[in-house]
């Protein structure tokens, strides 16, 4: 199954793969012929002192060598093209599939594991594939040809090779069989090592402030010790390969020498009566070729077994299907910014005991500003994530512009519903490039306008390079509040019908936040605005405020209404009013 799936990724490189095989076969044929020519050159040329013959055979040999070189080079070239191309297709298929992932797919696979699959695993498979198309063809054909020729020379002596093949084969099989499970374990431990390092890198401030350097070292050393132990064990088993091969080769040589000598002597050195000395030499050459081929086969097997784990991981990623798909005839325009939740139940896990959102009914009119408050874990984010269909409901339905979100074309829907995520990301590139994510073709004026609205223009201008300032990966060279404002500007550039701010101003100071809110209200009145916030001040002037509690809507209303009706709201308000957070 895995192999079949992988094979389907060869695609346009099938031709190169097949060509490799053809060139390899031709090369092998010449490699079989060349020792024969060399034997002749010695037997009839040098031993007889026949210069004409030497020149004749020499020319033939030269030609064969040149041809073999050409075929060999072609085989190498097409093998490289095929395997590098194959790897390219694998990476592409995986990456494209990741782009199709829904949020729940992304939640399931960690970033690190996706990256390893796209890099290390592909390299493993690429190497294995190159080996397979070059050696897997070469070795068996070489073996068959060599056996055939040696049987032609002397059948009885060739039986020795035939006997040694299963012996070596069985030995190699045993080695691989025992080493494989250890290798698999080693790769698992490698994952552990990688995640230990990456956690350490990310948490270095924590490590340092708790002075846990030694603790981290010990943790790391335990893992690297595991790798050491397992890798040594596996490689020590593999280390039997070479000696075993040598043992078989030497044994064959001695046996062929002994029996060969007796046959030669019995036949008086006459090829017709048995065997000539030149033939004995050829036989041994072929013996080495046969055993080397077997060795190659075993190497290919090792490569395949090692890369099998990688292949499985690749296929797992290409086969992972997005659980969010466009329906058959998707709607490609959104009428307005109306939102309606009708009896919505939702949970992240398929069959969770407890629903994350429990029977939500909520209707929002186009252009309304809705604030959402609620304690940590009350499912505020879960609620709004259903609007741009980042997840699908378990039951009930969510409509935007009067149509079920599942009936929209995903891209259409998400272009109209801009969401600023709680955990937002900027990408390496200039500020302008990052902002253009919202809209490819935006003019500079519009760009500045959006940044003014998000209160980002001023600080951008204060940078020496302004909008061309280069952001590091993850936007580490701007502060948290600046990052949030850039993210808001980016979302505004989409000119969405619905704008969702999921705790997107938590690092922005209150004054600036108030300015942003005011700007949004004045400048994009037609856009439905949903604001999740911790601070009551962030939502106090909203048309309506939704109070969430433990996956349910606890109360809806304006500030004044809620002050009367909702004890939770009152509590929150008072805790903050005391702190002077709310003062408009």
């Amino acid at each position: 199954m895995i192999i079949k799936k992988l094979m389907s990724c060869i695609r346009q490189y099938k031709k190169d793969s097949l060509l490799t095989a053809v060139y390899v076969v031709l090369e092998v044929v010449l490699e079989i012929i060349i020792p024969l020519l060399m034997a002749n050159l010695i037997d009839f040329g040098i031993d007889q002192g026949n210069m004409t013959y030497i020149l004749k055979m020499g020319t033939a040999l030269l030609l064969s060598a040149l041809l073999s070189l050409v075929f060999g080079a072609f085989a190498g070239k097409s093998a490289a093209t095929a395997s590098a191309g194959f790897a390219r297709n694998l990476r592409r298929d995986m990456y494209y599939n990741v782009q199709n992932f829904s949020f729940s797919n992304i939640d399931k696979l960690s970033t690190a594991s996706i990256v390893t699959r796209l890099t290390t695993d592909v390299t493993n498979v690429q190497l294995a594939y190159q080996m397979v198309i070059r050696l897997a063809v070469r070795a068996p054909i070489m073996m068959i040809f060599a056996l055939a020729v040696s049987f032609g020379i002397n059948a009885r002596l060739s039986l020795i090779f035939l006997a040694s093949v299963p012996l070596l084969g069985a030995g190699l099989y045993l080695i691989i069989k025992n080493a494989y499970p250890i290798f698999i374990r080693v790769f698992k431990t490698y994952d552990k090592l990688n995640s230990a390092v990456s956690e350490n890198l990310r948490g270095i401030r924590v490590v340092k402030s708790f002075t846990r350097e030694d603790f981290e070292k010990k943790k790391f050393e335990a893992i690297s010790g595991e790798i050491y132990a397992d890798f040594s064990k596996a490689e020590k088993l593999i280390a039997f390969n070479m000696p075993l091969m040598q043992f078989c080769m030497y044994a064959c040589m001695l046996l062929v020498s002994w029996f060969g000598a007796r046959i030669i002597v019995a036949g008086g050195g006459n090829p017709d009566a048995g065997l000539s000395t030149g033939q004995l030499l050829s036989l041994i050459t072929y013996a080495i070729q046969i055993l080397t081929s077997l060795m190659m086969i075993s190497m290919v097997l090792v490569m395949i077994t090692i890369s099998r784990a990688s292949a499985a991981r690749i296929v797992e990623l290409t086969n992972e299907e997005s659980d969010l798909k466009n329906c058959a005839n998707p709607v490609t325009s959104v009428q307005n910014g109306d939102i309606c939740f009708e009896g919505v139940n939702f949970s992240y896990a398929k069959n969770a005991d407890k629903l994350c959102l429990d029977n939500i009914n909520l209707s929002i009119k186009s252009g309304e500003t809705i604030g959402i408050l609620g304690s940590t874990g009350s499912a505020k984010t879960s609620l709004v994530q259903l609007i741009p269909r980042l997840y699908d409901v378990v039951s009930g339905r969510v409509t935007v512009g009067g149509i079920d979100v599942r009936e929209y074309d995903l891209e259409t829907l998400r272009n109209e519903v801009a969401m600023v995520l709680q955990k937002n990301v900027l990408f390496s590139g200039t500020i302008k490039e990052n902002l253009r994510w919202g809209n490819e073709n935006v003019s500079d004026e519009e760009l500045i306008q959006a940044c003014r609205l998000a209160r980002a223009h001023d600080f951008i201008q204060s940078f020496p390079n302004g909008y061309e300032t280069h952001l590091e990966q993850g936007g580490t060279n701007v502060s948290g509040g600046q990052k949030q404002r850039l993210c808001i500007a980016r979302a505004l550039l989409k000119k969405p019908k619905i704008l969702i701010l999921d705790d997107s101003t938590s690092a922005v100071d209150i004054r600036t936040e108030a300015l942003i809110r005011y700007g949004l209200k004045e400048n994009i009145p037609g856009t439905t605005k949903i604001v999740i916030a911790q601070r009551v001040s962030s939502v106090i002037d909203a048309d309506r405020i939704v109070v969430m509690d433990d996956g349910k809507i606890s109360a809806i209303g304006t500030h004044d209404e809620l002050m009367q009706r909702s004890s939770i709201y009152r509590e929150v308000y008072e805790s903050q009013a005391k702190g002077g957070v709310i003062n408009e």
Partner: protein
Amino acid sequence: MSEQSPNIPKRKMNTTTIKRLLSYLRAYKVRFIFVLVCIVISAAVSVVSSLFLQTLIDDYITPLLIEAVPDFSGLLHIIILMGFIYLVGVLATLFYNRVMVDIAQGILKKIRDQMFSHMQTLPIEYYDTHTHGDLMSHYTNDADTLRQMLTISIPQVFSSLVTIIAVFFAMLYLSVWLTLLVVITIFIMTKVISKIANKSRQYFIKQQASIGDLNGYIEEMVNGQKVIKVFCHEKKAKETFDLKNDNLCDNATKANKYANILMPIMNNLGYILYVLLAVAGGAMAIAGVTNIGLTGKNFVSLGMIASFLQLSRIFIHPIAQVSQQINSIVMALAGAERIFKLMDEKSETDDGHVTLVKAKYENGIMTETNESTGLWAWKHPQADGIVTYTKLKGEVRFYNVDFSYEENKPVLHDITLYAEFGQKIAFVGATGAGKTTITNLINRFYDIADGKIRYDGININKIKKADLRRSLGMVLQDVNLFTGTVLDNIRYGNLAASDDECIAAAKLANADSFIRMLPRGYATVLSGDGSGLSQGQRQLLSIARAAVADPPVMILDEATSSIDTRTEAIVQRGMDSLMQDRTVFVIAHRLSTIQNSDVIMVLEQGRIIERGSHEKLLNEKGKYYQLYTGTGGQA
């Protein structure tokens, strides 16, 4: 991925890198010598085995052919003798292969451990300026190429060299003229080979660079995958990926193409050499040219030419092998260079000699003790040999401190502040005003440019960093958790804490209730940086982690920013008891979090512009008042 490009190895291999790698072998001196001996034996046996055939034919079979009653006992003897030699060879091969595994894996473990342990000592600045992907690749790609070199390339190259030398002398022994011919041919051959190998290497380097480029891109994109989805940016993300992917494919194809071509060229040039030798030898024999061997002058014999031809075959094979390994060696050395570069990065400087010790009062005088008394003291060895003890209180004073991350871009100007024992000091101000920077100076993540910071009256530069940080508890806005159980994560604050103490800390931070809701309570394993938890829950855990550490000074940098105010109000009670009898530095946007502070410092562009209590600042109607009431500004 700015670190990728400058690592292109020079044309000449870096000898210091090689020397340094060799120094790792020192620990395995005996075993490595054993390996070398075994390789010599193994190589010698394989040369002997190739020569044996000629002997077999010339000295045994041919004479037997003339004997009327052939006596095979001589042949039997030589075959048994050869059997023994071969056995020795096989065993030598087995030994060196297995022992080499030990050496290689041992060295790799040592390098990995050293690398990691050195990484722990690097200043925060280093982590700011290097991407994680780059650092990770030292542990994966670079270490892997080293492994290949140690286990495969080094033994093979050495064995090949031994064979080459042995065969070379054997050839000289037979004929100087023909050897000369071989040398000339090989010289031309290596010229061709090195041209190709060079091409190949160039592309391998390019391949490595494009791998780095692609990896970095993938990592960044996958990390921001959710943002890509929200912005429907998939098409763009694919386009750039395709470019980088095709670029890698292109370089990989070229690199492998040249590498793959090497072997057939070597092999077939070997055949061409063979023909040349046969023709030259034949001509010499027929013309009756005088041959010069190491043993002296003689005539060119046909047997000699046959032997020589045989030798030339053995000669080519190891040369081909060496040339094949060159690439992986070059790549491994480039990897090693990168690894060593990391190991050579300057550690955080730590000239501190003042350490933190447990203390007790004995007759009113403070002395050092091993018991846990709850009392800590700074142990201060003076220049004159006298050791003084200062009680750890948690007083922090800044005197005219200036600081900048980059030169000429000052972040803090002339900061002077006193934090007395048990006080709560708050920093407020716009983002980028320098609040976090101040706290980063207290724990010496960065060192000040000018001014003085004193901790309990001691210049903080004199305090050992580890001890300084041990006395400070940090709760940061971005919470980092580690793979392990919830309990393990809390215990990170104090490895000696009992389960009960950890749970008590969790209760204090109000984390207990949500932890108990997790599938396995405190034993729930968090993985992937605790990705299953909300930002607020993570902050609660982080507070519990600091609580269990029980330090005299706490730094809370937006520690509760993602916790809703209702929960915060509950946490606040715990926080209050946590803050009791401690010096606390608080950074928060939410002014409710800080208004009961003893001193509030308002920062603007790296300067303290206002300071005082909440009431005092409100009365002043300055910046704080504006922040507090949300008035002022351009609106």
